């Protein structure tokens, strides 16, 4: 299946569970970043039945990650991609995983996400988020990109929303709560944002984009 095919299929009827399962099982989502956003979104996608994920991250699991990221104490020091892959395969041994333990850059990003039907930006630094949005929106303008911005702190989780910012660019968050303002990253609010990202991806795969 070539890129975009899944997202351009006719919408899956909401009450047709076999069709929903079949569509998700044949879908491929790439996650650029496997930290607070990416690790939690990946688990939700696998539990929902998405058949193939690409995991991209250069980092290793540190103790400071355990407050919000889907890793465990016995995984400290492991590459996040490999640790996450182990956990995802415990959820579904049949999931197909493409693992890239490397830093996503302007030069390699398009090759890393390959032929994913939907791409999730799950980075932490603002510069990296902008790079991912700019590179992918420019070079893969028709592949849906789901990004997150504004999820730090403990303001109401109801402020975190999903909106369609461009033709194929979806934005999750409150757009303003910035780690650089010394706001803490709280598991519950980070996971709300990651759930939004996973859910937008699932809706896109099922042919039901946000308006």
């Amino acid at each position, binding site marked *: 299946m070539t890129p975009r095919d899944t997202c351009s299929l006719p919408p899956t009827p909401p009450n047709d569970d076999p069709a929903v399962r079949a569509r998700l099982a044949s879908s491929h989502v790439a996650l650029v970043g496997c930290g607070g956003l990416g690790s939690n979104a990946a688990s939700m996608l696998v539990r929902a039945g998405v058949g193939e994920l690409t995991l991209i991250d250069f980092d290793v699991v540190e103790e400071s990650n355990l407050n919000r990221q889907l890793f465990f104490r016995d995984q400290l020091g492991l590459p996040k991609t490999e640790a996450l892959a182990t956990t995802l395969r415990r959820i579904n041994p049949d999931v197909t995983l493409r693992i890239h333990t490397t830093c996503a850059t302007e030069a390699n990003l398009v090759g890393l996400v390959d032929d994913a039907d939907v791409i999730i930006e799950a980075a932490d630094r603002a510069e990296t988020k902008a790079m991912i949005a700019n590179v992918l929106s420019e070079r893969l303008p028709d592949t849906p990109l789901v990004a997150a911005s504004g999820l730090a702190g403990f303001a109401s989780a109801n402020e975190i929303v999903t909106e369609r910012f461009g033709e194929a660019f979806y934005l999750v968050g409150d757009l303003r709560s*910035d780690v650089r303002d010394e706001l803490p990253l709280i598991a519950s609010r980070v996971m709300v944002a990651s759930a939004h990202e996973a859910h937008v991806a699932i809706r896109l795969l099922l042919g039901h984009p946000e308006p």
Partner: protein
Amino acid sequence: MKVDLALFAYLSQYQPDGMGGRHPRALELPDQSRIADVIELLGLPDQPRVVFVNGRHAPDDHVLAEGDRLAIFPPVAGG
């Protein structure tokens, strides 16, 4: 020419009318203005940003046209 300008998050304070808010407003520009010219005109800070014109990504050297919908969004850190 006129374009519709929407500035998101903290960039909204740079709307020429000083009213803030993310809703789009008409901006009068010389013909053949580029996105980089708008950024300079508004005095936007040199921070990461994502720019869309009519729902599609556009680079800073993109030449704007009458009626274009220009949206500028600054990602913030955290993940």
